[in-house]
């Protein structure tokens, strides 16, 4: 059965999701304008796979690379914020289930959160 607090939890989550998407889209857009103004005349090369530069491939790399002269890093930061949005959603659900004192769902949610953190933080 859904309880009142499940419903309330869901409404807060929906606001969280929308805000996360909006902020990340704005950062990506800013980075994109910056990218086009600097590299607009260059030829894109996506036919052959080279893998994105190392600084664009990890959380710490992206954060360290962010500065006004590296537009790609700004886009990557926006994309990272986007990836973090569903993670924040799961973390928030964990808090919600804790407030509801639902041990089973706290454990289930923790497993999901651990998988997400592993994916982003562990070297692959």
């Amino acid at each position, binding site marked *: 059965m859904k309880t009142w607090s499940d419903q309330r939890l869901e409404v807060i989550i929906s606001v969280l999701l929308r805000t996360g998407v909006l902020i990340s889209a704005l950062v*990506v857009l800013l980075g994109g304008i910056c990218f086009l103004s600097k590299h607009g005349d260059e030829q894109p090369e996506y*036919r052959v796979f080279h893998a994105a530069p190392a600084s664009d491939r990890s959380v710490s790399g992206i954060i360290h690379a962010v500065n006004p002269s590296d537009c790609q890093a700004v886009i990557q930061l926006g994309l990272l914020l986007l990836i973090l949005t569903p993670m924040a959603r799961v973390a928030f659900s964990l808090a919600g289930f804790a407030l509801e004192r639902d041990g089973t769902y706290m454990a289930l949610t923790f497993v999901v959160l651990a998988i997400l953190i592993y994916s982003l933080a562990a070297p692959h």
Partner: protein
Amino acid sequence: MTNLEFTPLVFGISAVAGCLGALTGLGGGVVVTPALTLLLGVDIRYAIGASLVSVIATSSGAAAAFIREGYSNIRIGMFLEIATTMGALFGAYLATRTPTSILSLIFGFVLIHAAWQSSRGRPKDEKVTKTDALATKLKLNGSYPSPDGPCEYQVSHVKTGFSMMFGAGTLSGLLGIGSGALKVIAMDQAMRVPFKVSTTTSNFMIGVTAAASAGIYLSRGYIEPGLAMPVMLGVLAGSILGARQLIGAKVRVLRWLFAGVVGVMAVEMIASGLKGKV
């Protein structure tokens, strides 16, 4: 072609894909990758990376709207996300070890399924009479709003649904798609969750599933900022537009149109996979 020409082109293609995806309920990710590889010759790994990012954006944006309506079931979603995120990790690892021609082939078969699904429309809900002990234990049964007041429902075949969700997650991580169609089948057909609850809960789960493979894609260099930027913004803009147009649109005609486009793409993806041209 320079970036100033390439970026708007990719944005346009992605916006059309996002709009069609929202209108038909199949999501834009499944069309973006074949469009980028077939039309623009983008390496399938870059296309998959960009598509996955767009999937997170549309899922989170759309889920926000659906959650408010009170249809999605947060417990079913969270429980099944264990299966989809583990599947997504597995799929993303597989993706880095699978030759691109095989990826293209698998993509083709998934597209055939999407085309078939799109031309079929929504199935009828069947009520569950037998209670599933696991569903009761996990508090998966719920209710959704209907014109005649809250409509209660029960969930069955929890284990079957869970295993199918692992498969859906694997496919999502392997191909950078939301695999919403498979998630809906697992809930609607196997677990007998009402269709509306299945679709909205699936949407809710897609973002979390995709986020699980995104970390691996990122560290493998699949997410190329110059390409992911117009794809993410395009699909997002298109899907917002598509969701607005949903009321009053000729969905039946669109479904057939979408099925046709996806069918052609399926044949092309399979052909280029067989020729090893990807």
